[in-house]
């Protein structure tokens, strides 16, 4: 990948030039410690638009202090990226409106920057007792409701602080990154094959998407093409993942409003797909199928037939479930006009995936930034404009139909040549970098990779779909009543693990 190089102090100017027509939006921003290669720190910004990616690289010369003018006042979507860079690299964005710690919580001591290359695992890290202030609203009659990080159900950890006036949410602050495992640091120095196992385990529900994004990053840097049969198997796995996520999420949405029969049928259908996943790949989360250079197993004609038969049952049951929801006024009353996310907010925050498509933003990596065999497939990208819980539900409903359509096409046209499903990765020129992307069930999933010596990972940046979408949840919750928050949250159905890494 090529980058427009600039001094870090000019990042804002160059970013504005790229985005002035609004055709491009900021998709990822991260720092890299290149002192051992080039003698400096660099901040990379990746912009996506018009089926294309543009990268800029802001360089700090050796003598310069590690500060630069913040992008956040001009690009709202940069806010969390800059906080993360500040936490992990100690690079200060001047003029950032909110520099509270994001990734490293109040237990992390000042002045230790774990993503710098000179931070070794042997460095003792004492437990600090810093103060962390949640942002709230003060005033007569306004009260706060703290929720989490351990929630009542079986869900991932996050702390939410509601500022309430009566039942109305007037402000919501979220403290996340509880499940931060430091995966980006953990994979540094590992061979590309070994790092793939961790990339696949960033998130359970997006396992395939992460594996594909990572594998495509490796393959684009190594400049290799994988066999068409392997591409078909990957798309099959990716669509099965979308299918079980969407069906499960629609069932789970019913849990947000206590519609027990919807929960039961949703979880029953999801279980049928999970069992199908296990039949196809040997793992219920489809793990172990996608590996850099191809796939590990073929899909035999017999297995294709089994998938098609199961798919018929699943889609029939799914349409029944949707029928139960569509005909139920009590259900519709709860989901319609609840948790509205405006198109403008979507664009400002760089929201992706289901949430964007439900608010009138017509984006889908599979169609716009074509990868794998999606260009040969016939499918529609559903877009709704109301931006409420219902719109996100209907987007998922339509995507389930489209995924089934895609799987049928794939299985019909898949070559069964038994040709080489796995291409070996050649020796890669040290310090080459590249981007891999895919559309997960939640949206655009980007992996940026720089490869060091001997085909080992030098830097791996992971920007999952949940990253830009989490701030949107706090916006969508405003002016709703607090009992609707679980419903709104479930309609986005974001992964904490994907975000926290």
């Amino acid at each position, binding site marked *: 990948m090529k980058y427009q190089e600039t001094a870090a102090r000019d990042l804002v100017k160059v970013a504005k030039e790229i985005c002035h027509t609004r055709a491009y939006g900021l998709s990822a921003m991260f720092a890299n410690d290149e002192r051992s290669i080039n003698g400096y720190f660099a901040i990379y910004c990746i912009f996506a638009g018009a089926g294309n990616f543009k990268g800029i690289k802001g360089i700090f010369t050796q003598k310069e202090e590690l500060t630069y003018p913040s992008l956040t006042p001009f690009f709202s979507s940069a806010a969390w990226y800059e906080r993360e860079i500040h936490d992990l690299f100690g690079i200060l964005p001047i003029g950032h409106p909110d520099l509270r710690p994001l990734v*490293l*919580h109040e*237990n*992390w001591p000042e002045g230790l920057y*774990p993503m710098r290359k000179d*931070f070794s*695992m042997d*460095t003792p*890290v004492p437990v600090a007792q810093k103060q962390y202030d949640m942002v709230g609203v003060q005033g007569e009659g306004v009260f706060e409701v703290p929720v989490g*990080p*351990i929630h*009542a*159900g*079986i*869900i*991932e*950890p996050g702390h939410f602080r509601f500022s309430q006036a009566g039942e109305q949410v007037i402000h919501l602050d979220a403290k996340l990154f*509880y*499940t*931060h*495992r*430091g*995966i980006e*640091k*953990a*994979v540094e120095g590992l061979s590309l094959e*070994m790092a793939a*196992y*961790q990339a696949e*385990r*960033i*998130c*359970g*529900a997006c*396992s395939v998407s992460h594996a594909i994004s990572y594998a495509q990053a490796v393959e684009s840097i190594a400049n290799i093409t994988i066999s068409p049969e392997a591409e078909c198997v990957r798309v099959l796995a990716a669509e099965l993942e979308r299918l079980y996520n969407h069906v*499960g999420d629609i069932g789970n949405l019913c849990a947000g409003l206590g519609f027990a*029969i919807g929960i*039961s*049928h949703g*979880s*029953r259908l*999801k*279980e049928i797909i*999970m*069992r199908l996943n296990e*039949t*196809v790949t*040997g*793992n*219920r*989360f489809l*793990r*172990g199928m996608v590996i850099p250079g191809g796939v*590990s197993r073929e899909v035999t004609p017999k297995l294709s037939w089994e998938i098609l038969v199961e798919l018929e049952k699943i889609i029939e049951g799914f349409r029944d479930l949707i*029928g*139960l929801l569509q*005909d139920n006024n009590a259900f519709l009353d709860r989901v319609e006009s609840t948790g509205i996310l405006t198109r403008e907010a979507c664009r400002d925050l760089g929201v992706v995936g289901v949430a964007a498509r439900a608010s009138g933003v017509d984006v889908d990596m599979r169609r716009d930034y074509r990868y794998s065999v999606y260009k040969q497939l016939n499918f529609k990208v559903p877009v709704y404009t109301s931006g409420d819980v219902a719109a996100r539900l209907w987007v998922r409903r339509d995507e389930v139909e489209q995924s089934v359509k895609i799987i049928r096409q794939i299985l019909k046209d898949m070559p069964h040549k038994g040709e080489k499903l796995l291409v070996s990765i050649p020796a890669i020129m040290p310090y080459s970098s590249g981007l891999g992307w895919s559309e997960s069930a939640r949206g655009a999933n980007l992996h940026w990779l720089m490869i060091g010596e001997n085909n080992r990972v030098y830097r791996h940046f992971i920007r999952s779909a949940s990253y830009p979408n989490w701030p949107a949840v706090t916006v969508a919750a405003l002016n709703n009543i607090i009992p609707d928050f679980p419903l709104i949250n479930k309609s986005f159905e974001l*992964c*904490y*693990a994907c975000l926290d890494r």
Partner: protein
Amino acid sequence: MITILKKILSIGMVTEIYDEGQVPSRFRGQVVIEKNLGKNCIACIVSCPTKAITEQNGCLVIDHKACIFCGRCIEHCEAQQLKHTSNYKLATISGKLSNSIGISVKEKIRNVLGRSLHIRHVDAGSCNACDFEMNALSNPFYDVQQYGIDFVASPRHADMLMVTGVVTRNLMQALLMTYEAMPTPNLVMAVGACAASGRVFSNSYAIHGAVDTLVPVDIYVPGCPPRPQALLYGLLLGLDKL
């Protein structure tokens, strides 16, 4: 209302009796060593992403707590002496449930908790796959309530803590506080390779370690993630209800 009733009747009952489920042929279960070669072949040891295979006194030993069932060791074994079986019942008991503590303690706990077990879940840093499999236990196929087991919202109502994920620095306090809030006697289950071994992600600044480095663990359930039947096996093994 009539469509809902029709739907319920047309589906009928799907709940399975324990151990009835089928294991598909591609399923990757327990890794077994057919024959220890005795030669100095370390291909499987080197190939394991979580260092679950070690050599002890000239024999290969597989630590299933750390195994992610990826099959890489099997691919790399030139002599083809390793293979996956369909066995997923790999849960083990230790701590308060192990015989070394004394059979009376174990019996006492089982008498108190055996008939109705209430579980609190803590995600200590998981990838959410284990969490989803725990959720699946409540679906109509497994219906965990048929065994007198249920999930509760507060540790104060819980007899057991099911912990998923490797304990991260950011969740140490939450895990400890949840554990301390539980009444005694109680049990702790480490769910999945991260919680049981802490070795899925290599050494990282953000990770504290396996669950048993912070709270005592009584049941370990290997898997990445363990399938719902494997979780059920672990629960029933702990309660001696198999």
